[in-house]
């Protein structure tokens, strides 16, 4: 006697699970341009590498000993390789109970997350669920109500341990939305992905507002206004491409260092354009993204959060193959000034770099915090000091290149001033507590008002201070360590990156403790 009948039963039950919510629901799902969950996983990971766990989980009904019906768990997960590295991947099956977490059976998603933590592997969440146990159907199933008890400790702790990536691939509410937000990188699919604390029916009932799901929580809200999602994707394939790209810069966990990637560019490349990229007219902005391409490895830049907090540019990139985290200011957005959204984005990105031991390169062109009534209402200084705290709590190697402006408190926050950092400046460097244009008026108001010709006197004072504005005077006092030919920036940063990775070899690894932030 063998166990062949039972072995056959395994296969039969797998086939039942692969039917998901049934042909009709699968077809409806696919007609919206969405892949089914197993097709999504196949499209994301290396071909044939997905080893599913928990495929037999589901709700069965029996007639005597005979299996009469089977509704599979609507959470599918397992181990796979992605670009040759091990990852844990899990996602919701929308065709069963709308992906609601109470259809997952037996805490499968929690199992996947614990597996990622214990195995110290990246966690990829393909979220497509309409809610948590929040469905009132649960009450009917168990005959009682219950105190909500989503386990959240693990979700929080794992962010200090392994990369967590989330994609919002359908209408995602409640616990699903929380799982998207609680990630190192999230992507929302334009048109088909929506994220909200509660969807349109609950919104209508709760606050009496009729709203379409796309206008309530689509990409234009969460990738462009709220910053809940870092990036938007054109379609599912684009989302998978972005997930693979983001992961390529990160180590498997925080106990390991990032690995050197492809070396695809000459380390000593000196682009001529860098000599003229900063306009001599102080009021003319430069193209910050083009500037970055001249410095970092060709084709290595991956931008995170492009459309949120736009005054701050955050990118992952490589120098001579080594992953680095890149901060820059965009003078074409709010003049490059640090506003509340930019500060929120900056703090998260610096934390990401510090958590995964990525050296930081900061291309500084900071005119100061955003000013005005709207900026005050947005809490600019509160979010600003949080970003400053993140910079000062970071312990990874840090390089600052002051390419243009560094003004005020926000300008001072370009690095931890109490640590040694590698810092260079371009000849276009321009710095101070207050810019001369407004600063003269503030400091000499009485003298200017008392002058016979106030405008002429102000102009005279400004001319006097402008004459002292040369960065060479600052360098004489060693208040800036070095002024360099902008064309040398890449070779200098490549050399620094090699040093930084040597330092990281002796860096304390694993989860980091950071004290309370203001």
């Amino acid at each position, binding site marked *: 006697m063998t166990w062949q009948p039972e072995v056959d039963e395994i296969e039969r039950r797998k086939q039942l699970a692969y039917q998901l919510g049934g042909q009709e629901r699968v077809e409806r799902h696919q007609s919206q341009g969405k892949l089914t969950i197993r097709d999504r996983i196949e499209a994301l990971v290396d071909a044939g590498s997905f080893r599913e766990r928990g495929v037999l989980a589901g709700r069965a009904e029996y007639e005597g000993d005979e299996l009469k019906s089977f509704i599979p768990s609507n959470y599918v997960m397992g181990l796979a390789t992605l670009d040759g590295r091990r990852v844990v991947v899990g996602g919701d099956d929308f065709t069963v109970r709308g992906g609601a977490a109470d259809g997952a059976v037996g805490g499968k998603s929690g199992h996947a997350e614990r597996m990622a933590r214990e195995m110290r592997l990246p966690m990829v969440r393909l979220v497509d669920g309409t809610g948590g146990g929040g469905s009132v159907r649960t009450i009917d199933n168990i005959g009682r109500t219950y105190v909500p008890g989503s386990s959240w400790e693990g979700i929080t702790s794992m962010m200090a341990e392994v990369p967590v990536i989330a994609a919002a691939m359908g209408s995602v509410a409640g616990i699903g939305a929380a799982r998207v937000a609680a990630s190192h990188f999230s992507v929302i699919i334009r048109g088909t992905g929506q994220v909200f604390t509660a969807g349109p029916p609950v919104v209508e009932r709760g606050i009496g507002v009729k709203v379409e799901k796309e206008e309530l929580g689509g990409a234009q809200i969460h990738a462009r206004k709220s910053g809940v999602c870092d990036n938007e994707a054109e379609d599912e394939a684009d989302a998978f491409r972005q997930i693979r790209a983001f992961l390529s810069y990160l180590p498997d966990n925080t106990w390991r260092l990032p690995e050197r990637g492809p070396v695809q560019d000459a380390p000593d490349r000196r682009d001529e354009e860098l000599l003229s990229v900063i306009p001599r007219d*102080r*009021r*003319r*902005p430069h193209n910050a993204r083009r500037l970055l391409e001249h410095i970092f490895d060709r084709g290595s830049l991956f931008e995170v959060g492009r459309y949120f907090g*736009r005054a701050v540019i955050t990118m992952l990139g490589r120098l001579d193959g080594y992953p680095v985290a890149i901060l820059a200011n965009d*003078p*074409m*957005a*709010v*003049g*490059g*000034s640090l*506003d509340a959204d930019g500060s929120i984005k900056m703090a998260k990105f610096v934390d990401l770099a510090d958590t995964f031991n990525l050296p930081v390169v900061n291309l500084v062109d900071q*005119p*100061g915090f*955003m*000013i*005005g009534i*709207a900026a005050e209402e947005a809490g600019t200084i509160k979010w600003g000091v949080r970003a400053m705290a993140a910079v000062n709590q970071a312990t990874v190697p840090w390089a600052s290149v002051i390419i243009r402006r560094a003004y005020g408190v926000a300008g001072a926050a370009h690095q931890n001033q109490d640590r040694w950092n590698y810092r260079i400046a371009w000849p276009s460097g321009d710095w101070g507590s207050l*810019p001369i*244009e407004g600063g003269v008026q503030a400091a000499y108001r009485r003298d200017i008002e008392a002058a016979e010709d106030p405008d002429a006197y102000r102009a005279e004072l400004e001319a006097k201070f402008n004459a002292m504005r040369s960065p060479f005077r600052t360098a004489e006092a060693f208040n800036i360590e070095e002024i360099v030919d902008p064309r040398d920036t890449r070779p200098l940063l490549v050399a620094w990156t090699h040093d930084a990775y040597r330092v990281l070899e002796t860096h304390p690894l694993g989860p980091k403790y950071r004290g309370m932030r203001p």
Partner: protein
Amino acid sequence: MEVRAEWPGVIAEIRVSVGDRVSAEDELLVLESMKMLTPVLSPAAGAVQHIAVEQGQFVDEGALLLRLGD
């Protein structure tokens, strides 16, 4: 389609006139904000139907700058 100010500033230059056809990413206006002359780019191709601001005018975040049509 409405083009609105993404941050407060002063209209430093208006680069288009009513009736002009523009492509996506064309420079429509220049907004001086935080002492920086920042271009306002066209979000899409179209024709300029209405210009709601004048040179030298202060605009707040969200203010209507111009309207594009087909």
